[in-house]
């Protein structure tokens, strides 16, 4: 399939799905029907040309499938079906308010990220229904067989059906919580793509690009929402560094050692502009803070120009908002950069008694790094090795073993 056609279909997929679900109410069956319509388009349009109203075409074809499906379902459930209800479903009321397309897309997104779904289910469903990715593409991205992923999507749809979630926007009370879930799912998708960029991953789809695209769509629908803007800024400011974080051999390069000429300045500018506008709105959220931290890093021309006191202040704010021990860990690193490694090490001691992070490889890795700066090489080596034994990431394990080996050599100690 040619690239422009693929992009067009991916754009139209959620729009078509929104319209079909709005009309027929059965999310699971509608999703299947739209998938079939997309497949038909992928085959027919290259031969016959793109129709004048491509979205209308997809909705029409999907609706026809739905009618076929409903008719066969009706035939099976003739006695139980309330015929009046069926008729009402198929023809909208004359006085019904036409909902906007924008509401449909947003409603769909809230549905895909419903809190009753596990994160991996929500991610799979969002990529399918909102991103228009095929099951095979998503499966490849997550390194599972296509059949496994297909099952996950089926079950996610069945879950939504069983939970009886109506196809409408969440109420005002529910909305901010539901939006938080949506943003979290989008962030997970971004992170999956970004953290997998170690080494050549030829078969994997650009998940981070997809996350950015979807977040842009949400931002267009909710332009006054500072946290959505914050998330988009965070993604751009992080993605900007992507090319520099791995070497040609797939080795991981820490922030302090990255070739900053490889950072994407356009993404950095856009991220900073978005962030500035968001911060001007007054309320500060966690994504905006994380974006601000990323911005401070991205603004430094060289690692030694990094405004660490700014970063420390931002982590102090983030610590007030978030109980997450990873935030405390990053805060300790910033404190070490501003006040010296001993301060950082003292802060790490507090984390030893936090069961959520004690024994986590990152705690040992950071400790090792700070011990190295203080000059206690043997202790640093010990913690690098401990961290290496605790991580489940191959590139990270390699990196940590290299650090241990490097330090070990300079001590002149044997294995």
């Amino acid at each position: 399939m040619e690239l422009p056609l693929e992009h067009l279909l991916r754009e139209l997929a959620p729009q078509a799905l929104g319209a079909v679900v709005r009309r027929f109410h059965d999310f699971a069956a509608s999703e299947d029907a739209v998938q079939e319509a997309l497949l038909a388009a992928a085959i027919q349009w290259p031969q016959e040309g793109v129709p004048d109203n491509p979205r209308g075409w997809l909705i029409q074809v999907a609706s026809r499938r739905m009618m076929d499906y409903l008719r066969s379902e009706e035939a099976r459930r003739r006695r139980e079906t309330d015929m009046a209800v069926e008729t009402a479903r198929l023809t909208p009321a004359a006085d019904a308010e036409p909902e906007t397309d924008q509401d449909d897309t947003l409603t769909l997104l809230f549905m895909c990220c419903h809190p009753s779904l596990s994160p991996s289910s929500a991610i799979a469903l969002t990529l399918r229904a909102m991103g228009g990715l095929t099951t095979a593409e998503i499966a490849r991205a997550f390194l599972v067989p296509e059949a496994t992923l297909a099952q996950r999507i089926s079950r996610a749809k069945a879950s939504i059906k069983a939970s009886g979630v109506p196809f409408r926007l969440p109420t005002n009370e529910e909305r901010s919580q539901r939006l938080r879930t949506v943003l979290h799912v989008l962030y997970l998708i971004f992170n999956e793509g970004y953290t997998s960029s170690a080494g050549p991953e030829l078969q994997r789809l650009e998940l981070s690009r997809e996350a950015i695209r979807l977040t842009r769509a949400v931002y267009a629908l909710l332009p006054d929402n500072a946290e959505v803007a914050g998330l988009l800024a965070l993604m751009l400011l992080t993605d900007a560094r992507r090319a520099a974080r791995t070497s040609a051999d797939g080795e991981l390069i820490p922030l302090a050692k990255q070739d900053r000429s490889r950072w994407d300045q356009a993404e950095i500018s856009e991220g900073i502009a978005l962030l500035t506008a968001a911060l001007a709105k007054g309320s500060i959220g966690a994504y905006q803070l994380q974006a601000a931290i990323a911005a401070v890093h991205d603004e430094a021309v060289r690692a030694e120009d990094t405004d660490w006191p700014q970063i420390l202040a931002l982590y102090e704010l983030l610590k007030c908002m978030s109980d997450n021990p990873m935030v405390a860990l990053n805060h300790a690193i910033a404190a070490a950069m501003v006040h010296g490694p001993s301060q950082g090490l003292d802060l790490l001691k507090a984390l030893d008694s936090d069961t959520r992070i004690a024994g986590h490889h990152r705690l040992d890795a950071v400790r090792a790094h700070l011990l190295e700066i203080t000059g206690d090489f043997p202790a640093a080596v010990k913690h690098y090795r401990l961290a290496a034994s605790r991580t489940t990431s191959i590139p990270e394990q390699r990196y940590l073993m290299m650090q241990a080996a490097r330090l070990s050599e300079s001590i002149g100690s044997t294995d």
Partner: protein
Amino acid sequence: MKYILMMTGTKAGVDTYRAWSKGDVQTHFAYLTKLNKELSESGELVANEGLAAPEQAKVVRAGKDGVPVTDGVFPEAKEFLLGYWIVDVESPERAYEIAARLSGGPGPGGVSTNMPIEVRQIMGRRTEDL
């Protein structure tokens, strides 16, 4: 999170298994088939393979000039892999739960075989910024 669940056995264990009654064997297969179906339907099963009989196994070492040296039969006491399941699950607890199900397959008289299943997380390629 991906885990590999490994079912191991010894020659003695396998010999005993080969002497089970037809009914017991069928019951055991039915149990595993049902479990595999469940794991497929839940979207957790990534791969599952049974390995050929240990008598057919070889242990290979590098020999002189790159010619592989193969040893035949496993020694009596050695444990070897019978088969594995690779699952993609939300938590370590779920991996242990599945492993316990594997371990609980029925043997002669319907008594659980209670086989030890080794559970190992599979390392990934993802990593946070350093």
